[in-house]
């Protein structure tokens, strides 16, 4: 499976296409290009972990830390996947389409952020392709977990609506263990390890784990990709390095890493577009945690579980299962729109920043916090996804990778700075107030936002650090995802998304990657690569392919 090269080889390795990263942006493009006949090599900085190594264990060194990265910045911490399959392996597989108004957002640039070619309508056929490929399923209310059901009941009690969002989960296989962030042991979560990636490999794509790309250089008519080989246990240790040449390079290392690779490449490639490493968005994310009054839940909401408990089910479930979309209202002003999603984070990530409601002393640590932890089973955490103002800027790159690694795995210090503007802060304040209004009615709960004083703001959905757009001054990529001024380099990951989406972004990231493939195929053909576009879904399904073929009559099935 690996084909690591080391320094000293006399003739550089060559391939048609190098893809950096194996999350949605890498896996989807790898599949289509390999299926179309191109020679594809995927370089992934994290390990390749089979599902029987996804452990239910918080111990350092188990899959909880092997496949997950926490990069602290200045005012923003970024959480994400670090493994073959990228974010899809650690995420909660919640897959809503972005609301229509999102595509008309302006942020603070005084014009539409998104390319004119992309609207909700024009993206629908690409959403459909991903929905067929993973696949994505509707959730029935009978599948809503206890925390999701409680959130729905609280919303209803407050006169709001609530929805079980679509998911890429086989709920029949799911045990509701809530260990999703350590990888799904039961293969219930339809990560990329189950669809695009094995299909890409079956078409000849090579996936090389523990290969961390550092920079690109320009050689005679092609790009040279420089990488380090990382130790499989201590990610602070480099055990080798090498290069590989390609006619096309697709960067899909994630919004926290793609711009850093380009920054480091600037000395060789020449000036980067202004928007590389700027306009980073944390998807407007923020969390509130409530302590539920169990008696009130029974008496006021009429909820009970077998055995007499009313709730006490914080640990049970599969991340989010119910969201409130009442504020996804395009008639509201920008920065006032958000979704509120019930969510579970495991202890550690999910407990440290929570603040004790009503604490008189410190709220995230100390006596009151410990008392809050005693009631952990009765916690209900609500995830805000709002409209931030693309405030993030990457500083000078670290010596290697996208962070100086502190711990053997997981924890690092990155170069991202983020200072929320009044618009972002206003959105957060409005969302906090909405949550409080919903949850504290009739004494059903006491709620408080997580602190931003400890690690700054935080996001599990980093976006926009190398974004698409029509305006060269505020976008790094054209609407075909090609890096401005550097033909043959494409970016197809979350960094290409122009701004916050107000919902979970994975499906939109994936749809944009699907949409980018035909242009990449054209660019490859222009460079003499024998490749065509038109593969079915990874399992052979073709109905969504038929829909996108209508967009371009020259494509044939």
């Amino acid at each position: 499976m690996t084909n690591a090269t080391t320094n000293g080889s006399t003739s550089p390795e060559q391939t048609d296409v190098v893809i950096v990263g194996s999350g949605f942006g890498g896996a989807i493009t790898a599949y289509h290009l390999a299926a179309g006949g191109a020679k594809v090599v995927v370089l992934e900085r994290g390990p390749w972990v089979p599902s029987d190594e996804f452990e239910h264990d918080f111990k350092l060194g188990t899959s909880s830390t092997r496949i997950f990265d926490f990069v602290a910045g200045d005012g923003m911490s970024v959480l994400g996947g670090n493994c073959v399959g990228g974010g899809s392996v650690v995420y909660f597989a919640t897959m809503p389409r972005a609301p229509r108004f999102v595509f008309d957002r302006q942020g603070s640039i005084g014009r539409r952020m998104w390319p004119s070619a992309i609207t909700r309508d024009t993206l629908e056929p690409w959403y459909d392709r991903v929905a067929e490929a993973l696949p994505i399923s509707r959730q029935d209310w009978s599948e809503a977990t206890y925390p999701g059901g409680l959130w729905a009941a609280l919303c209803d009690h407050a006169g709001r609506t609530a929805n079980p969002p679509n998911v890429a989960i086989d709920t029949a296989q799911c045990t509701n263990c809530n260990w999703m962030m350590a990888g799904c042991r039961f293969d219930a979560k339809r990560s990329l390890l189950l669809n695009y990636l094995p299909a890409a490999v079956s078409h000849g794509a090579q996936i090389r784990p523990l290969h961390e790309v550092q920079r690109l250089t320009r050689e005679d008519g092609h790009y040279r990709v420089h990488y380090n080989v990382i130790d499989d246990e201590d990610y602070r240790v480099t055990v080798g390095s090498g290069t590989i040449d390609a006619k096309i390079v697709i960067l899909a290392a994630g919004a926290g890493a793609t711009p850093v690779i380009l920054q480091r490449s600037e000395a060789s490639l020449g000036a980067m577009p202004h928007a590389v490493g700027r306009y980073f968005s944390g998807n407007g994310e923020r969390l509130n945690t409530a302590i539920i009054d169990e008696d009130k839940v029974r008496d006021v909401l009429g909820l009970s579980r077998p055995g007499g408990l009313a709730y006490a089910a914080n640990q049970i479930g599969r991340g989010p299962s119910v969201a409130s979309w009442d504020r996804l209202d395009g008639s509201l002003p920008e920065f006032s729109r958000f979704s509120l999603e019930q969510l579970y984070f495991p202890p550690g990530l999910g407990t440290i920043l929570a603040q004790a409601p009503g604490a008189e002393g410190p709220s995230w640590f100390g006596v009151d916090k410990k008392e809050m932890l005693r009631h952990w089973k009765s916690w209900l955490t609500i995830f805000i996804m709002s409209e931030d103002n693309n405030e993030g800027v990457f500083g000078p790159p670290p010596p290697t990778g996208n962070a100086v690694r502190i711990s053997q795995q997981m924890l690092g210090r990155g170069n991202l700075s983020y200072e929320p503007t009044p618009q972002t802060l206003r959105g957060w304040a409005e969302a906090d107030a909405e949550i409080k209004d919903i949850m504290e009615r009739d004494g059903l709960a006491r709620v408080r936002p997580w602190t931003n004083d400890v690690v700054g703001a935080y996001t599990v959905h980093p976006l926009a650090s190398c974004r698409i757009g029509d305006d060269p001054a505020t976008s790094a990529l054209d609407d075909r995802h090609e890096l401005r001024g550097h033909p043959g380099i494409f970016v197809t990951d979350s960094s290409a998304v122009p701004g916050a989406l107000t919902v979970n972004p994975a499906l939109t990231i994936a749809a944009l990657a699907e949409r980018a493939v035909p242009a990449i195929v054209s660019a490859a053909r222009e460079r003499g690569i024998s490749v065509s576009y038109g593969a079915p879904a990874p399992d052979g399904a073709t109905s969504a392919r038929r829909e996108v073929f209508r967009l371009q009559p020259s494509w044939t099935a």
Partner: protein
Amino acid sequence: MTITCQPVEEKLQNLTVEQCRTMTLEAFADTFVPGAKRFPGDVAVAGAAAGPGAVEAGALELLETPATGVSDGLADLADSLNEHAAQYAAERGIPVDRDLPSFAALGFKQRTELIETLVAPDHPEKEFWILTALFCFMAFDTAAHTDTVSALAAGHPGLTTMGFARPDPDGLWRFPDFSYGRQLARTHPATTPSGDPA
């Protein structure tokens, strides 16, 4: 007067350097997740809360795990903390028990007040203190120094306090009882036929 652990001050000759540092780090961890005193006369654990806290949960064991990346800096951390504590006490005229490392000599309220300044957003050493604090929390909340199944079987103080459920016999968690099983709210009227926001 600054009482650090290296060199051990004259009045601290009853403690080895290692004991001094251990006491300092335990007092630090206890400030984040406080616990009941482990034995009569326990100084490091101030006894500010009922039940075991971060120290009994294994905070020092986790901090001393090389994989954290902080283990090499613990001696400096203890010394620095005692220096801050001595300065804090001196500025406020707080009498210091000279038989104890300066931070452990402070009362719980004073320890808390000092820590609040060290982890405040504008403190220049904030990242250093917070990084260490995160592992103190993780010891209590996750028992990250040991495997979770064994930790639960041994009655790990943090996981037990939080009510973390026991796994199935194969060491994996499954919750077959997971849903109220009925619709509990109206769905948004503009939900699309695909089940998405409009």
